[in-house]
C-alpha cells in the first residue's frame, strides 16, 4: 500500500513533527492559561497566550546553561538529546496518508524499539546532574516503564495481529472499511494511555513531577531544557500520531485526501489528550503499576485472544 517517498522527506519529517508539536503546545498553553488567569478577554489576548511556548523557546535559547557539582555532563547530555532523536526515529515509520519515510516489514517493532529509548533518555537525564531529586525523577520513569510497557506491547501486538503483519502500511491497508479502534477498543484505549506514559506527560508526568521540583528535568536550563522538553512534545506527537495508522484507519476516509485524513485524525487524538489531561491528577506508579498488571495486562491479553480467534476464522 505504501509508496516510495522522495529523499528530501528526510528533512521534511522533523520539520513537520516540530510544526505539529508547536501547535499542540500552543493549544495546551491556552488551556493552562484559562485555568490560571481566566477566560481571555479578546482574540488578541488568546493569540498572546497561544504564543507563550514560542516566547519560552526564545527565553531558553538565550539562557546560559548552568552546571552542577560533580555532574556527569556527558551522560546527562546524551539523555537530553536522546529524547528528540528517539521521537524523530520513531516517526520514520509514521505514514502521512499512505506514505511514510520508511515502511520496513517490522515497522511496528522499530517504532517500539525507538520509543523504548526514552527509558534510557529520562534515566540518564535524571542521573547526569548529580542531584538527588533529579535522580528520583529518573528512577520514577523506570518504574513507569515497568508499568506501561507490557500492556503497551500487547496493545500494538493486537493491531499487528488484526492485520497479520508488523508492517505499518499493511496495518493501515487492513483497516480499509473497519477501523481497528472499533473492534479492538481495549487495545486502543491502552495504547492512548501508554502514548502519554512513554512521553512522560500529563497524568504520567510523575518523573518530572512538581513534588520533586521538576524531577529529571529539575537541573536543566537553557538549551538543554529546550531540547529535553521540546523532545518530549515531539515524542508525544509521534506516539499519538502512530495511533492513527494502528487503530484509526490511517489515511482512509471519504472526500478528503489521505494526508488530510491523517492530519485531522492526529489533531483530534492530540486535542483529546491535551484537553483530557485536565481531568486527571498525576498517577503515581506505586498505585498505577498494580492496576497495569492486574487489570490492563489481562484485559489486553483477552483483547488479543478475541482478535486472534476472529483472524483465524476469517
Amino acid at each position, binding site marked *: 500500500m505504501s509508496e516510495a517517498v522522495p529523499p528530501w522527506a528526510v528533512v521534511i519529517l522533523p520539520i513537520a513533527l516540530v510544526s505539529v508539536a508547536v501547535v499542540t503546545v500552543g493549544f495546551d498553553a491556552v488551556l493552562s492559561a484559562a*485555568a490560571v488567569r481566566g477566560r481571555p478577554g479578546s482574540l488578541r489576548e488568546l493569540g*498572546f497566550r497561544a504564543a507563550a511556548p514560542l516566547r519560552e523557546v526564545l*527565553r531558553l535559547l538565550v*539562557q546560559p546553561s548552568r552546571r552542577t557539582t560533580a555532574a556527569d555532563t556527558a551522560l546527562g547530555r546524551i539523555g537530553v538529546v536522546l529524547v528528540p532523536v528517539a521521537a524523530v526515529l520513531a516517526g520514520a515509520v509514521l505514514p502521512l496518508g499512505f506514505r511514510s519515510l520508511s515502511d520496513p516489514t517490522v515497522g511496528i517493532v522499530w517504532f517500539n524499539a525507538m520509543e523504548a529509548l526514552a527509558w534510557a533518555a529520562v534515566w540518564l537525564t535524571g542521573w547526569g546532574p548529580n*542531584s538527588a531529586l533529579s535522580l528520583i525523577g529518573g528512577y520514577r520513569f523506570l518504574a513507569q516503564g515497568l508499568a506501561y510497557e507490557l500492556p503497551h506491547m500487547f496493545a500494538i501486538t493486537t493491531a499487528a495481529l488484526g492485520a497479520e503483519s508488523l508492517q505499518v502500511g499493511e496495518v493501515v491497508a487492513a483497516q480499509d472499511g473497519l477501523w481497528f479502534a472499533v473492534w479492538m477498543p481495549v487495545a486502543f484505549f491502552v495504547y492512548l494511555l501508554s502514548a502519554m506514559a512513554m512521553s512522560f506527560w500529563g497524568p504520567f508526568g510523575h518523573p518530572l513531577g*512538581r513534588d520533586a521540583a521538576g524531577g529529571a528535568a*529539575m537541573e536543566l536550563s537553557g538549551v538543554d531544557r529546550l531540547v529535553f522538553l521540546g523532545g518530549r512534545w515531539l515524542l508525544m506527537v509521534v506516539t499519538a500520531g502512530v495511533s492513527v495508522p494502528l487503530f484509526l484507519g490511517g489515511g482512509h476516509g471519504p472526500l478528503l485526501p489521505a494526508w488530510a485524513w491523517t492530519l485531522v485524525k492526529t489533531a483530534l487524538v492530540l486535542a483529546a489528550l491535551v484537553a483530557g489531561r485536565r481531568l486527571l491528577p*498525576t498517577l503515581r506508579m506505586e498505585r498505577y503499576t498494580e492496576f497495569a498488571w492486574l487489570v490492563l495486562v489481562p484485559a489486553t491479553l483477552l483483547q488479543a485472544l478475541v482478535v486472534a480467534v476472529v483472524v483465524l476464522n476469517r
Partner: protein
Amino acid sequence: MDLRSRLRRRAVQSPVVLVAVLPGATELRLDVEAELRRRGWDIAGAPAVADLLVVCGSPDPDVGRRLDTLRRAMPQPALRVDVSRPGRAAQALDEGLALLSERAASPSESASGHEDAGAGEHQAHSGSGSAPAEPGHGAPHGHEHQHPGHEAAGHTEQDAHGGHGGHDHHAMSTVAGLPMADRADDRDGLRLDRLLLPLGPVLADWPAGLILRCALQGDIVQEVRVDRLPGPPDGTSFWNEPWLRASRGEPVALGVGARRRCAAHLDSLGRLLSLAGWGDPAARLRRLRDEVLDGAPAGQCGERLRAVAGRVERSRTLRWGLAGLGRLPAERARRWGVTGPALEADGDVHDRLLVWLREARRAVRDFDDVRPLPAGELIGPRGTVGGSRPPSQALLDVLPELLAGAEFGCARLIVASLDPDVDESVAVSAGDGAHV
C-alpha cells in the same frame, strides 16, 4: 543595538521567577503571586529554571547569605529583588525586569553598578561579579545547601551532625568536595546508601520557612527532623490574624474571619493539588483565593468554588492516588494536640482535602455576616488560636511519625495535607540552629 542584544532583551520580557518566601511574609507572597499571574510570568519549580529570584520578606544577614547561595544556583545573570512591604510587588517586579533587560543588552558587563539600585524597601541585588556560576556553588542537590550529608553510625552520630551536616567530612571519602553518602540498614534490614537531604526552606508548593531534614534511602524517607527559618518575633500569622485580633478584644466581623478561613483553605488546597499533579483545579482555586481576599461577592465565590470543588470531590483518580497516605486517626491526632481540620478529618490525605473543601464552602455562606466573632470560640483555619501552643505546632510535631517510611512523593503530599504555617510562633527541637 545589534540583532543579538535585541533578541536577548526580547527573550527576558516574560521571565520565570523563583519565589523565596520568608516566615511572616505570607501577605507579600500572595501579592507577588497575584502580580505574577497578572503579568503571565511563570513561577519556577527549581532554581535552574529561573531568571529572577524574588524574595518576600526582610532577610537577616544569615538568611541573606543562604538566599545568595540559592541565587547562585540559578543560571546567569541570576538576579534578585526583594519585596519587603505590602503593595510593592509590582514595583519590585518592574525593577527585576529592568535589571534583566539591562543585563540582556550587555551580558558581559560587570555587575557592580547594579548594587542596591532601589533605595529603601526593596533592593535589587545583581550577580556577584561577572563570574559565571562556579561549579562549587552550583547547589548540586537542588535547593539551597542541599549537600548530601552522611551519617557515620547510629542516631547519636546523626544528631551530632545536625547542626552542620554535610560540611563535616570525617574520614569519609569525598567526591568534588562533597562527602559520599554513608550506609545504614533500610526498613528490610538491607544495608543501603543513606542520604541526608534538607527539604526547604525554599521549595515550590512548600510551607514557607519550613525545613525538613530527611534521611533518604533511595526515595524512601527514613527519618525526619523538623527545623525552620527564624520567624517574625510576634508570631502573627496572616491566616490567623482575625482570630488573634478577636482574642485581644478587638471587634472583628464574622465575615472577615470566614473570608480568611476560606482563603487559607484554598491556598492549602492549591498547594496539595499542585503537588498531586493536578494543575488545572489548583490554579483555579488559587485564583479564587485571591478573589476571596479581594472581597469578591459571596455569590460569585460560592458558585466558582462549587464548580471546582465538585470536580475535585468526585475525582476517583485523586481518591485512588491519595487514599491511605499519612493516616492520622482522630484519637492519635488528639494525643498530639492537633485541632482543626486535621483532627476533624480523622483519616488520610484525601480526607483532609475533603474537610478543607467542605469548610471552605461553608465559610462562603458567612462572608457577609457582620456579627462579631464570638470571643470564646477562636478556631482558625489550622485549629484553636490563642491557646498556649499555636495550632501548627501540633501539625509539625506529628510530621516525623507520619513521614517515616513514606516514599518521597508521598511525603510531600502528607506535608501539604497538613500544611503547617511556620508564620505562627512554632518552636523546633533545640540544638538545630538554622545553619546546615
